[in-house]
């Protein structure tokens, strides 16, 4: 047997968590222990998840590398493959190949404060880093998480949000778009950039990690700039359509930068260098 780049690991779905309408989290375990042993990844990387007979789809690994023995992914049911994934039950076998892409330079952030800003379904790629940082809590100063979704129902990882809320070493701010609040909603109401401006976290010795829909990113960057964040202090991820995950299929490039190899993690400074094609 040759080394086949396209050959996925067989993964068993151990647990399915319903997160929000159309959004599920799968906890996946390697069917073969040997695969599990040689597999390693870092925060920020992604993989190709596949339903045999339907196809492959790209999303990040949502669990932190500090938790061994399984990986998790969270996806929203939108296309052909995510629909098929959504139809899978606990115990089903799916494919996974990866990890691909670059990583969040967590080691370089040692001794700094972290500010996480996420919108909607973009919390999963960040959750990996958040847990990674929380598991190594002593390495960082303040950790602030600002998370917004369209409505209360659309907030993902509701259990974990409660968890973070109770932790004394994390400052969690949740918000929903105006009109999306429920009667008993205790969090903020307003769009993410507005809330960031209101909370006004200090930029001193702080790294900001921003993930969300393009509009959110577009309006959050200026707010961060006003708060004194330089472009090198802001990290984000790009999500482009991909097929291979390793720089061959020709889809994901933005100019000469391949999101699958050079990304998905970019600093705002790097993004500004890219042509407007993402």
């Amino acid at each position, binding site marked *: 047997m040759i080394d086949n780049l396209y050959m996925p690991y067989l993964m068993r779905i151990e647990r399915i968590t319903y997160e929000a309408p159309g959004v599920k989290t799968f906890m996946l375990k390697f069917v073969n222990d040997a695969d599990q042993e040689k597999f390693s990844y870092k925060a920020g990387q992604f993989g190709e998840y596949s339903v045999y007979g339907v*196809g492959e789809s790209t999303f990040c690994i949502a669990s932190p590398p500090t938790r061994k023995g399984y990986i998790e992914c969270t996806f929203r049911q939108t*296309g*052909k493959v995510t*629909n098929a994934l959504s139809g899978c039950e606990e115990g089903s076998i799916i494919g996974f190949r990866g990890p691909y892409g670059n990583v969040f330079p967590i080691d370089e952030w040692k001794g700094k404060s972290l500010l996480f800003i996420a919108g909607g379904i973009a919390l999963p790629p960040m959750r990996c880093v958040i847990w990674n940082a929380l598991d190594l809590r002593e390495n960082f100063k303040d950790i602030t998480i600002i998370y917004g979704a369209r409505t209360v129902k659309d907030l993902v990882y509701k259990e974990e949000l409660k968890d973070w809320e109770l932790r004394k070493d994390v400052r969690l701010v949740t918000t929903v778009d105006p009109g999306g609040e429920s009667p008993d909603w205790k969090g903020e109401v307003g769009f993410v950039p507005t809330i960031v401006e209101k909370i006004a976290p200090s930029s001193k010795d702080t790294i900001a990690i921003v993930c969300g829909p393009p509009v959110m990113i577009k309006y959050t960057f200026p707010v961060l700039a006003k708060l004194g964040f330089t472009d090198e202090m802001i990290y984000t991820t790009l999500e482009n359509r991909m097929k291979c995950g390793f720089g061959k299929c020709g889809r994901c490039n933005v100019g000469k930068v391949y999101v699958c190899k050079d990304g998905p993690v970019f600093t705002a400074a790097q993004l500004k260098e890219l042509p407007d094609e993402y």
Partner: protein
Amino acid sequence: MVDLIKRAKELIESSSVKVVIGYEQGTGNKTRALFVENSEDADKLIFDSRCIQNLAAYITKKEIKEKGKMAVAATLPVMRSIIQLASEFQVTDANILVLGITPESKLIEFGNLAEVEKFVHQYEIEIDVRNKEMLDKLEKMTQPERWQFWIDELAPCFKCYACRAACPMCYCSRCTVDFNQPQWIPVPSTELGNLEWHIMRAIHLTGRCIDCDACYNACPLSIPINLLTKRMLLDAKEHFGGYQPALKGEHLMSTYKPDDKENFIQ
């Protein structure tokens, strides 16, 4: 064509239209589409027997439509396509001016689409002799022979979709083959998938195809896919008395007659 150049210049200079679509000398011995947006470019306009690309394919193209009102140097097949597109609400008098080129290579300008319709209705859609012979030849084959003929002919097809791109009637922003829920036709080029794709194309063009051969001319592998639509044209004639693109009235396949023949139904 001196008349065409002169008229194109007038139209552009008077801002009556934003763009004139015609032909220019291409590379090698080819001709190609030209989009005249300023009067100097109009000098490049030509017309001769090599100008066979169906320019109506550009009428529904986003990048061209955005420019504003257009004038099209239209040969008979192009005029037919325009009428068909108008009948499908893809183009109206407000956004097109037809500079007709008659089969005798004379320029006639039409005031509106109704006049174009009247003009094209003078000519029947005729299938040329060479293709007619080919159709007859296929007709005489046995069913397994025909099957083999098409499997062999379509096997080289690598699904570049040049046939679809060149066809003025294939203007859907998302074609059936681009959908994946359900995936009607396999994305990779496969023997059966290729046949399915070309059957689908022929069916979707039934009653709409005006037999311009753009699909065949565009095919980089010269697969005679136009035979499929030609057969449909003949069948439409046989079963329903044929059709001409028309601004008003029912489309062949979106209507019915209570007495459509049904000798094959038990």
